[in-house]
């Protein structure tokens, strides 16, 4: 559905993205994560057809997204919610539906349906008089007025309160379940873990890791073991009356067990823990 090949984008001599290549399959939720200035937003803007690549190629649904007609199958949600504040939510959404040549009847039905799902009742309110969360919901609804196959969401939960954030993230997952292809970026890696099927980690314009979350975990860290003992061993921290030691493999677990026995104690608990995307991200970022 989306093909990005050797994408390079420079702004006034500054390289924002240098040679990214990835593909997104239909119905997939694809995460783009990385620190500030990593090139995430530029990558998403390029996919949305807002920015022309300096080099390389981007194809969305077989077309060039910088061509107006290709953008007909795209729904873009920028990091902010830049609405025309003198317009009501309804008139704003109708205007965009009009730009996408959606018949008025279909548009109204679709708009009301989406706003119902997003639980936004104040449809005749000027968007300038809305809260940030409400504006975000209007922006999300705008990205859906044309019933696009591809959604490009840049930090969809940016700046929202936890409740609204959770709502928006769940909504993205629902959209994916309905068959839409979603490219998704977020600072909060927990959200990415919740909704993304595959992920690329970007740093300083480069893709430094890619794959499913499992693949990335395998490649960057794998499983960790936390061994709780009744006596202190090397590298242990005292917690809740016991001692906890984190090791990376079963050999480490055996070493802790042996040392505890030698010190007159024993192992009372062994827990496994998979590294979070955040752990992997920090690990990758430090490495690069």
């Amino acid at each position: 559905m989306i093909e990005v090949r050797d994408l390079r984008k420079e702004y006034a001599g500054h390289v924002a993205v240098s040679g990214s290549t990835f593909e997104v399959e239909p119905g997939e939720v694809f995460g783009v994560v990385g620190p500030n200035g990593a090139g995430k937003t530029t990558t998403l803007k390029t996919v949305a057809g807002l920015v022309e690549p300096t080099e390389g190629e981007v194809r969305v649904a077989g077309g060039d997204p910088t061509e107006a007609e290709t953008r007909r199958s795209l729904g873009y949600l920028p990091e902010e919610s830049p609405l025309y504040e003198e317009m009501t939510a309804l008139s704003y959404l109708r205007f965009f539906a009009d730009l996408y040549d959606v018949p008025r009847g279909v548009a109204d039905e679709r708009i009301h349906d989406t706003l119902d799902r997003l639980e936004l009742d104040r449809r005749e309110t000027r968007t300038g008089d809305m809260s940030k969360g409400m504006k975000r919901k209007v922006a999300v609804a705008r990205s859906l007025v044309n019933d696009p196959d591809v959604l490009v969401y840049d930090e969809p939960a940016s700046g929202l309160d936890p409740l609204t954030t959770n709502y928006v993230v769940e909504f993205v997952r629902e959209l994916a379940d309905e068959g839409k292809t979603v490219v998704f970026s977020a600072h909060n890696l927990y959200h990415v873990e919740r909704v993304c099927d595959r992920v690329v980690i970007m740093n300083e314009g480069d893709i430094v890791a890619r794959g499913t979350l499992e693949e990335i975990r395998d490649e960057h860290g794998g499983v960790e073991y936390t061994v709780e003992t009744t006596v202190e061993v090397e590298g242990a921290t005292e917690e809740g009356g016991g001692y906890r030691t984190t090791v990376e493999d079963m050999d480490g677990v055996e070493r802790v067990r042996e040392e505890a026995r030698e010190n007159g104690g024993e192992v009372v608990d062994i827990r496994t823990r998979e590294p979070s995307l955040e752990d992997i991200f920090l690990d990758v970022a430090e490495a690069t």
Partner: protein
Amino acid sequence: MRPRKVLRIARWEVSRSAGGLDRRSLAYALVALLLVAGVAPFAVDGGLYDSLYVVGVDEESGYHDAVERSETLRAVEPSEEAFSSGRLDVLVTDGVRAADTGKGRAAVSELRDAVRAYNADLLDGYDTAYPVSVDLRYVDRGTAVSADDASESVSGGSSGGDGTEGGTDGGTDVEASGEEDGFSFPSGGLDGVLGQGGRAGTPGGITPPFPFSSLVLAFAFLVPLNFVIQAYSTSIMNERIDRRGVLTLASPVSRYEIVAGKTVPYFAIALGTVAVVAVAVSGGVASVVAVAPVAFVFLALTFVGSMFARSYKELTFVTVFVSVSVTSYVFVPAVFTDVDPIAAISPLSIVVRDLQGATAPVSWYLFSGAPLVFSSAVLFSLGAGVYREEDMFTQRPVRLKALDALVSWLHRRASVAKVSVLLIPFVFVAQLLVVAVVFALPVGISVPLLLVVAAVVEETAKSMAVYAGFVSSVFERTTPNAVVLGALSGVGFFVGEKAAHLAQVVGLDRLEVGRAALGIASDASPLVLAVLLVAPLVLHTVTTCIASVGASYGKREFGVGLSAAVAVHVAYNLAVVSLVA
């Protein structure tokens, strides 16, 4: 560009803007309408002149009828007390006395014109009745009236005859001298008075006669345009503030459709307002057609300025700049309508002629309108070049944004030739503007000044695209590349320049500065003309190469190269002027 999309955006722009119109904007619009609707008809009816000067003159006086017939004079009972207290500008008793003020002197001048007009009418009737030839001359009676010394007076007139007594039958010429003409006026004496502090009088009385009323009315066409650009600039700026325009850019419409859609309503409003003004001041379709390019250039400059401005503060500067520069460009030449070919530069001259009941030739529409229309089209194209996500939301300096806009036209080396052609209308308009500004100066000053300015304008226009290409890394910074780019740009400019030489159509070549600015040399020998045809090609190519080579090294070197190119160009211009002269 798809008209349906453009109209859709235009419709949205209207509804959106209407929704966001605040009370202050409405108040401004109302004031503008009242200004136009109230002042203009008043002016067209001669209201500007009505009873401007108060003349104390007895009904029995020979001056009375002349004063009564004048639109600018108002006859009242003569009174020494009223004259002393300043309520009368002129007192006619046993002589003519003027108040010792500028207005008093102007009133005397106007009285003199009124008397002359009255005499002419009387003699005209006489001429009709009898087959005679009338030659009316005014001679100095040797008696001066002094406005400074109001006690001195001019006699003759109060008890004069009807001005026809000197006529004889049988084809004898009639000489109406001041001695014999009851309404004669000692022009020499009054001229002496008026000459003391420079000429005074109403603008309509200045020689050559300036079409004052029509000019004022023509100016009324420009007033509403200033309000339209305020709304338009705000609309464009709103797209850029808080990145509001990004979602429109992400929708399936091109940026050109967006720009066109946002502009169409304001152009329509501008034309509508112009039409209303035309009706109010008894103008015709000619006025509306003539002002349309002015409205277009108002919007085009505002659009580019709004795209480059980084804040509302800068936007204010932009709109003031647009207002002042365009108004100056169209208004100053129009002052000389019917007086000088320089007026053909301005579409407002067509309006002035229309309001005078005269018809302007089609060539005037082309000559005054075409450069503005082409310049506007180029400006819109330039601004649309940066109407994209990566430019319109940044805070880059205006200089860099302008370069970005130029870069949007550059795709390969040959593009610089295209840019040079596109910039020809600007060069043309800039040179016409300079012509309009300096043509009143002595030729010894205006021509050299013009030659220098023309060289600066042309060299800058030719080399900017090359410089922009180097700055943005579109072109490789090598000397051979710079030479090729310079040559391409020079050739492009030469072609465009030759195509734009429409000046001869309207007779601007009759002006010394016109010839200097536009390279018109119709009276030169064929050999000289042949040389002059090829020489500009060599000039443009060489000078642009010089500037381009400088540009390939950096900003400072570009400045040096451009200066050298200008110097060569000025030397060439001086040589050509010497050769043709």
